[in-house]
């Protein structure tokens, strides 16, 4: 134990001096204020303003500690989990207030009232290209629903350019659930997972893209998405829709709750989600990546054992790289006893400052978190409403 402590204390750290961390946090304070304050000042409700100020201070504190401690993954995960929990706390009351329940009826579907989710992107692309139609019962422009296609599409393109596969650890509205349950146990109960399962998201991607194009319906949304439990789902009015509800409940419990607890890995994200598979292809055009310095690496394989999305294997480690499924969560970077793993900007020297690359990437990722991070403000506001009026609606 003493030896481990000694090694850990010798480990090169990404920690910053307080003054430097404060200085580097200031732009984030300005950016977050610039992005959020216009919405808050238009709210016209003092509770909303208080919720906004608390959220603003909270996220900037998280960002400061992320820079100061050098522990990117720990603080990223906190923010990621908070956003995932905030989403249903805001979305479900909104559904109940607008439609009377969180269940989608045919009337809501045929009036384009379903909220558009970014996870539908793989399915809608071919029909959109071939027939210029969007095969999802949502709005194209934001008028009524919580999220419109045009907004989600633009966010998706921007995030893909900016952070690539980093979407899955920095932007995704749902990944925080997987992240949360994967951190509950100190040690995994299931350690050996057949590596062939990492191909399931790609098989899923192929299958849903083709089936959606053939059937003209969003197959993943109708049959496979476990996160409908946190947002909206088709009302179980007949055998078919009842089966669909049963499937997503089972998938949520299995892939998002039980297996992440048992394996300490993000099973839904790493072994099932087809959107992640799509993002991993787009990752090729992203400037940020995670590398391993082979001079420092002691081949302890701690990173292989802990990577939440199975994005490191023996051969990739030997070449000092991660697999295309790397979500740039920084768990390997923070956990490496030799400080061998690091963020890197493509084109720059492999010996270039890892701290610079880390700060630049963390800025890109954290700012994108703020887009959906608005859910934190809404969720806080609803909690205050619950306390003061007895209702979250």
């Amino acid at each position, binding site marked *: 134990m003493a030896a481990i402590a000694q090694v850990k204390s010798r480990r090169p750290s990404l920690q910053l001096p307080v003054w430097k961390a404060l200085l580097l946090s200031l732009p984030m304070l300005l950016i977050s204020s610039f992005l959020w304050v216009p919405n808050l000042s238009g709210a016209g409700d003092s509770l909303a303003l208080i919720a906004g100020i608390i959220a603003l201070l909270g996220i900037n504190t998280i960002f400061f500690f992320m820079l100061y401690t050098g522990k990117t993954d720990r603080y990223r995960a906190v923010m990621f989990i908070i956003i995932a929990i905030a989403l249903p706390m805001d979305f479900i009351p909104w559904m109940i207030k607008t439609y009377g329940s969180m269940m989608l009826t045919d009337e809501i579907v045929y009036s384009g009232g379903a909220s558009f989710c970014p996870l539908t992107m793989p399915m809608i692309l*071919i*029909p959109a290209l071939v027939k*210029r139609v969007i095969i999802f019962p949502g709005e194209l422009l934001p008028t009524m629903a919580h999220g419109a296609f045009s*907004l989600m599409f633009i966010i998706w393109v921007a*995030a893909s350019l900016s952070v690539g596969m980093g979407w899955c650890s920095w932007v995704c509205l749902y990944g925080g659930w997987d992240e949360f349950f994967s951190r509950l146990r100190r040690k995994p109960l299931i350690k050996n997972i057949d590596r062939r399962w990492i191909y399931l998201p790609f098989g899923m991607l192929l299958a849903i893209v083709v089936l959606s194009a053939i059937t003209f319906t969003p197959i993943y949304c109708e049959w496979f998405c476990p996160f409908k439990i946190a947002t909206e789902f088709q009302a179980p009015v007949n055998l078919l829709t009842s089966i669909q509800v049963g499937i997503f409940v089972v998938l949520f419990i299995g892939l998002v709750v039980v297996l992440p607890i048992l394996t300490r890995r993000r099973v839904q994200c790493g072994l099932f989600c087809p959107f992640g598979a799509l993002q991993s292809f787009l990752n090729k055009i992203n400037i940020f990546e995670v590398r391993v310095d082979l001079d420092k690496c002691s081949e302890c394989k701690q990173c292989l054992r802990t990577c939440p999305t199975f994005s490191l294997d023996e051969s990739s480690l030997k070449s000092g790289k991660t697999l295309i499924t790397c979500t740039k969560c920084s768990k390997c970077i923070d956990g490496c006893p030799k400080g061998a793993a690091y963020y890197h900007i493509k*084109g720059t020297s492999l010996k270039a400052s890892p701290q610079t690359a880390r700060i630049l990437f963390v800025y890109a990722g954290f700012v994108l978190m703020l*887009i959906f991070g608005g859910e934190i403000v809404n969720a806080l506001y609803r909690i205050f409403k619950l306390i003061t009026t007895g209702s979250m609606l």
Partner: protein
Amino acid sequence: MKYIKSFLGYSIAVVCILISIMVGPMIGLLAEPFIKTTGLRLSPNYDGGEVRQTIDHAAYQTLVHRMVFDNTLIGERKEGFVQVEWAPLAALPAHIDEEVDVNGDNQADFRLVVDTANKQSVLTPYSSWVQELEGTYRFKNSMAVRVRLKNPAR
């Protein structure tokens, strides 16, 4: 060359941060031009397709959408539907009794009797390819009925 690549790398990284910052404020400005330029529209399976015919009544209108047999194929499905809508909701009478021509041949293809208060409808088909009633729906500003059809062209 090494320095050029390095310079480009850092520059693109900074651009990535700028994209992240600007996407929020720019969404509102980009959304409408994006939809207009691309000509994207909602699948007719959801919005009922384009309105083919509008029939004026005293206080309300009947909107007969086109028959929908859409597919990603070049071609049509064997089965589909047609949506008939009445708007505005507030001006609708308690009962609507209307014969509808969906294929534009000036011959009624079916008759609909709609109880707008109770959201109930009765369908009387006149053509063999008119199958059954799918459902009666009350939207924000209109009432609609979907009728299942067999594709008369197939």
